[in-house]
């Protein structure tokens, strides 16, 4: 058995168990108090997202309204990141593949990486980087620090560019490793802190979505 098939089966099983678990609780017995047991921080009141405007890796404008209509997982990173960013995008890829296989009736959430390094991460760079992980993933960048900060500040995402000199092009960017969840109304709904485990993320997302749909 191939390793990826084995992984899919295990994750599939976990999802089935969690969905069955949710169904067993039906009849109003699953409620918001269950959300407190999750490792995710689920906001008591989803927060409205103030206007921002970024460009996606295909060159299209992406703003707060583009987030409406579907769940979105949003991660902040940069392409010259050797460890955390490619690992998080690989985690998101496992999530995307498993949600697709195991919940065909549901619309697959958006998976988004917002670059916190707009100087190096141009649309062209993101256009080569993002599809490497998954063709349906979305990369976002800004044309100025202000554009990037319009989303990072309200999402509570700190980052720090450690340039040694203005000419330095091999600098590191320190950034939050959190993944944020935006609901289909376009409001900030939950926060997942690193390190990320795809099975746990899928499990918790399944419950968060179920409870949100009941409300």
């Amino acid at each position, binding site marked *: 058995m191939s390793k990826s098939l084995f992984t899919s089966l295990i994750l599939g099983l976990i999802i089935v168990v969690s969905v069955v678990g949710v169904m067993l609780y039906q009849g109003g017995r699953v409620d918001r108090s269950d959300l407190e047991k999750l490792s995710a921080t689920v906001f008591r009141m989803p927060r409205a997202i103030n206007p921002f405007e970024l460009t996606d890796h295909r060159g299209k404008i992406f703003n707060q309204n583009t987030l409406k209509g579907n769940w979105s997982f949003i991660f902040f990173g940069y392409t010259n990141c050797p460890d955390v960013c490619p*690992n998080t995008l690989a985690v*998101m890829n496992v999530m995307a593949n498993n949600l697709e296989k195991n919940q065909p009736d549901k619309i697959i959430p958006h998976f988004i990486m917002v670059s916190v390094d707009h100087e190096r991460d141009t649309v062209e760079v993101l256009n080569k*980087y993002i599809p490497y992980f998954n063709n349906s993933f979305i990369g976002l960048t800004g044309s100025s620090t202000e554009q990037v900060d319009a989303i990072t500040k309200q999402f509570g995402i700190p980052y720090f560019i450690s340039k040694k000199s203005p000419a330095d092009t091999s600098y590191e960017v320190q950034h939050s*490793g959190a993944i944020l969840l935006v609901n289909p109304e376009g409001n900030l709904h939950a926060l997942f802190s690193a390190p990320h485990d795809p099975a746990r993320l899928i499990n918790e997302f399944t419950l968060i979505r179920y409870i949100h749909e009941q409300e």
Partner: protein
Amino acid sequence: MFNFRYLITLLLLTIVSPVALADITIEDAWIREAPPVSRVQAAYATFKNSQADDVELIKATSPAFAKIEFHKTISENGLTKMQAQASVTIPAKGNAELKPEGMHMMLFNPVNPVRAGNKIEFHFTFSNGNTTSSSFIVKKATGINHHQHMHH
């Protein structure tokens, strides 16, 4: 008969006598394939120390990369950052695990792009003066950390 017993004893002595065992062994050695446009990538492995003393891994080189550094991914005040380390401690009778989002080798400027399936030679120098070499396999990472430890 005496000669025969003498021979057996000699053979036994040869088998049980201390032979030069490798004190550091390297397992699960792999390199994350760099996505297009990324100029940096990371290598991971488990270093096992069979000796009674700690050993420091002080240097890593590879003909495939211009420079290799030891980095640790740490989270501090909500920021994830990398901290360069002068060496990696491999504890006595223990392991040093270099794994995603922990300690790793940061690989700079590949001589040629390395692709999934490639095998890359690494050379290591330890604080006790020993050196060793190991072959690292390039992989497109899956995102599941225990995956790398599963046996085929």
